[in-house]
């Protein structure tokens, strides 16, 4: 035991401690050598055995990607489906010479420079034991040719996958959208584990908006694999939950009719069933084939699409913001009645121009000679500008903008597809905030005829028309009617969503405007008379032309082309039957010129399709057979 010392002996204690510290160090080093011996044993002597164990580590967790939901139109026409495809995959770890392998594969299978470039990009960033796709969508012949030669290519294999296919091609592409490969930015916003084994994600349109519903839930399986990673047997699995099928409100036949009616023109057609807000047609032309984007579009095709002067990639229905032009006049007229500043029987005289007090500027009517004495009904039938200059001035911008806003003209409609832009109803407050300028009276005048700062998307215009047709009932436009579980067949209908209704002072005012709008179509002086004379049902409509300004003039264009591109946009809004509306339509034809001559016939075709061909003219939606 310790020697009893009463006095602390510092030198002795220090020496003792130093001695113990050295022992501690020796102890540390010995134990570390022990660990090291163990590690050398594991990593050097038994390395080969462990490497084999690691290579064919038996239990492998594999993701089972869910099947994406299908998309149907209202009649069950298939709009988006999944088709099996074969792709060529390469596991870098198992391939000795990547370059030589690719060269040899080229003898059997067409591999473009784009394919190779994409492969190399992913090769750099991904891990060596994960398969990388070299080519997608092999033809049956290519699959067969590779299968015969497979033994020559260790580490290369064919994988079967489902890819998205749009059987109707370009039809309704701007409503439907498309899927594409998941990019870096999207990776940040999704639950990565739920997308394990999934290559595609909704990029635009319904495909994007309903991504969560369409995608489903990933499944997991534990599989026993051999050294090459081939599955020997499944030990345990949680099956994936497939995405739900979507049933759209769109009608593929009508959509096709609308797109064909637009033909070579650039423009948009929207048709809404005012009874429940269902969007029947959502056409933006020209379109493009969404199938091009699914497997990754090649850069040349993409640039052609992107740089085309017709802008096929531009979603005109949701993102095209056009001046509403004279299609705004029924709304302004209604505002005059509801605010009680208009006597419908009182005429004003239209000399063909209008002048503000103390202002030399002449605000012209589209009809140079003037309309003569004009009352409210005639102002709509003949679309007299001077009448609305005067009315707008009487109303003032504040009342105009507060009247238009409940129609949803200053907002998003809230439709359930992605990419929508909001329209614009100018106001004093808006101009101060955005332009930092006061409001000028002249701007009130041109607002009255839908020019100036006014902007509206074709969708919002159709929605406002539907709201007008139903005496202020403001339903949110919707494009998906129901979801369907592909396993059980359970259908869940989506509810109709009502926005705040437009306040109504007097139904007679609305009735008056609707009557005037039927005269636009059915009166012999109406601007849309050409579609009215042979119509078997009553149509309420209003034509419009919107001036084109600020167009970009590319110098490459030939002179006639520029001429055409500077022409006015042709617009037409309508609903029918006028007093029991079942369809509301908005048509915009870019640089179409006259609304009555160009836009109205397109609307007529769409309405005919719904009311005549689809039998909606009679009462109940499906009562075509019953009297």
């Amino acid at each position, binding site marked *: *035991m*310790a020697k*009893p*010392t*009463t*006095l*602390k*002996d510092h030198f002795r*204690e220090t020496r*003792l*401690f*130093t001695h*113990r*510290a050295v022992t*501690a*160090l020796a102890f*540390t*080093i010995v*134990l*570390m050598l*022990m*660990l*090291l011996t*163990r*590690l*050398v044993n*594991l*990593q*050097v002597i*038994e*390395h080969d*055995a*462990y*490497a084999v*164990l*690691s*290579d064919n*580590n038996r*239990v*492998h*967790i594999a993701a089972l990607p869910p099947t994406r939901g299908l998309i149907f139109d209202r009649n069950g026409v298939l709009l988006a489906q999944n088709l099996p495809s074969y792709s060529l995959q390469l596991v870098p770890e198992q391939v000795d010479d990547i370059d030589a392998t690719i060269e040899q594969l080229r003898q059997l299978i067409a591999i473009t420079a784009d394919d190779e470039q994409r492969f190399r990009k992913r090769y750099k960033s991904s*891990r*060596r*034991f994960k398969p990388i796709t070299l080519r997608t969508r092999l033809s049956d012949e290519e699959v067969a040719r590779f299968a015969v030669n497979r033994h020559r290519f260790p580490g290369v294999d064919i994988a079967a996958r489902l890819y998205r296919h749009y059987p109707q091609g370009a039809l309704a592409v701007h409503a439907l959208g498309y899927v594409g490969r998941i990019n870096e930015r999207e990776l940040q916003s999704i639950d990565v584990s739920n997308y394990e084994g999934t290559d595609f994600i909704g990029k635009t349109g319904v495909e994007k908006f309903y991504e969560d519903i369409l995608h489903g839930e990933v499944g997991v399986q534990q599989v026993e694999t051999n050294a090459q990673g081939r599955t020997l047997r499944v030990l345990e699995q949680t099956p994936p939950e497939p995405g739900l099928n979507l049933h759209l409100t769109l009608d593929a036949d009508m959509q096709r009719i609308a797109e064909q009616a637009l033909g070579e023109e650039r423009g948009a057609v929207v048709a809404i069933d005012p009874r429940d807000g269902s969007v029947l047609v959502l056409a933006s032309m020209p379109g493009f084939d969404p199938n091009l984007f699914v497997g990754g579009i090649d850069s040349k095709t993409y640039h052609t699409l992107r740089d085309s002067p017709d802008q096929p990639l531009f979603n005109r229905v949701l993102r095209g913001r056009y001046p509403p032009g004279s299609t705004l006049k029924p709304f302004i007229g209604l505002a005059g009645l509801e605010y009680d500043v208009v006597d419908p029987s009182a005429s004003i005289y239209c000399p063909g121009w209008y002048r503000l007090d103390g202002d030399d500027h002449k605000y012209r009517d589209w009809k140079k000679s003037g309309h003569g004495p004009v009352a409210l009904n005639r102002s709509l039938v003949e679309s007299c500008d001077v009448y609305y200059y005067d009315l707008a001035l009487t109303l003032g911008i504040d009342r105009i903008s507060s009247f238009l806003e409940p129609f949803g003209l200053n907002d998003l409609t809230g439709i359930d597809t992605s990419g929508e832009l909001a329209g614009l109803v100018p106001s004093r407050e808006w101009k101060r905030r955005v332009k930092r300028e006061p409001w000028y009276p002249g701007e009130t005048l041109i607002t009255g005829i839908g020019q100036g700062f006014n902007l509206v998307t074709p969708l919002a215009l159709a929605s406002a028309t539907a709201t007008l047709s139903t005496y202020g009932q403001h339903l949110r436009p919707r494009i998906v009617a129901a979801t369907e579980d592909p396993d059980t067949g359970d259908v869940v209908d989506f509810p109709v969503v009502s926005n705040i209704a437009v306040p109504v002072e007097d139904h007679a005012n609305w009735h008056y405007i609707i009557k005037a709008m039927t005269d636009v179509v059915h009166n012999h002086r109406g601007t849309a008379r050409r579609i009215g004379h042979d119509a078997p049902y009553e149509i309420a409509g209003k034509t419009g032309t919107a001036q084109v300004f600020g167009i970009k003039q590319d110098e490459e264009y030939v002179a006639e082309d520029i001429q055409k591109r500077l022409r006015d946009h042709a617009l037409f809004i309508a609903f029918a039957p006028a007093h029991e509306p079942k369809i509301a339509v908005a048509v915009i034809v870019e640089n179409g010129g006259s609304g009555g001559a160009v836009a109205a016939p397109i609307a007529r075709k769409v309405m005919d399709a719904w009311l005549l061909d689809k039998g909606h003219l009679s009462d109940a939606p499906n009562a075509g057979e019953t009297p």
Partner: protein
Amino acid sequence: MSLLDTPVHDLGQRRRSLAQSLHIDPPLLLGLLLLSGISLFVLYSASGQNIDLVWRQVVRLGVGFTVMFALAQLNPAPLKRWAPWIFAIGLGLLVAVLVAGEIGKGAQRWLDLGVFRFQPSEVMKLAMPMMVAWYLSDHPLPPTAKRLAIAGLIIIVPTLLIARQPDLGTAVLVASAGIFVLLFAGIPWRVVTGFAALGAALAPLLWYFMHDYQRQRVLTFLNPEQDPLGAGYHIIQSKIAIGSGGLYGKGWLNGTQSQLNFLPERSTDFIFAAYAEEFGLFGILVLLAIYLFIIMRGLLIAVQAQDTFTRLLAGSLVMTFFIYIFVNIGMVTGLLPVVGLPLPLVSYGGTSMVTLMAAFGILMSIHTHRKLLPR
């Protein structure tokens, strides 16, 4: 001699005083920074490229280094005065946690203080060596048999309290922190061997007091292949990861065992296996060299300490750090049973890292608060 001696001494004095005014020990700091760097790299890979997790570790490291710098500013003299109080508080908290603690992962270790949850056993990791060193330092060393017995009591009570939680890993650490103070205090080797023999004789008794899962761990350790998909899975997968790493490793982000989710707990307790798989034996040599460097520097600090209390405390803190390393690597390589200790400063985790950094802060404080007397 003195002509030559003076300028050298002056130079050393000046360089030292720069770091000393900040109370930092540059070699120790360098070692810790290297470990932190390695930790972030391995975590990024072992977590499956989870950059958020890496950032959280960065924040924890930041907290750890802040605590270290703060403690380094503190003179060790008050530390000695406070030692019994800190120990008393730690003991009180341990009792509190047994009475009113939170249960996490089947063990009662946490005390919820409203603002944050807190593990009182962490306090004991520092309080234990301080208390034993305080108790022994005022009397001549080596200690008398009576003082040794009381010191033994000081060690055993908190150790049992922690083992009851049950937290075997921390209990081992706290007990060894106290025992190392005794060893540094110079108790004769025959006493040490006597206790070791007694311990071996009492092992069956320990078995009796163990929880089921602790017994399972010991059984698994003895024969991992017996239950390859159950309890033995950790050790088998870990050994495959290490063994398949070989001399040079599979490369960063390319460890199949960890990337393909075969390796359990690969960001926390088993991070060494993930590291060994991707960086191989050479990577391990680098890591062990850094650890050894830190230990050697720490022991040097202990030897140069100017009074018995700081000397004993420093020595114990350094050796506890080593116990961490040894137990963790031993467990991951299958040399020791799985006791759930992190690889110090590399594993993902918060509380134990802060305690470790606090220990290094105390070491720096001891070293930089010396009164330098020219000899």
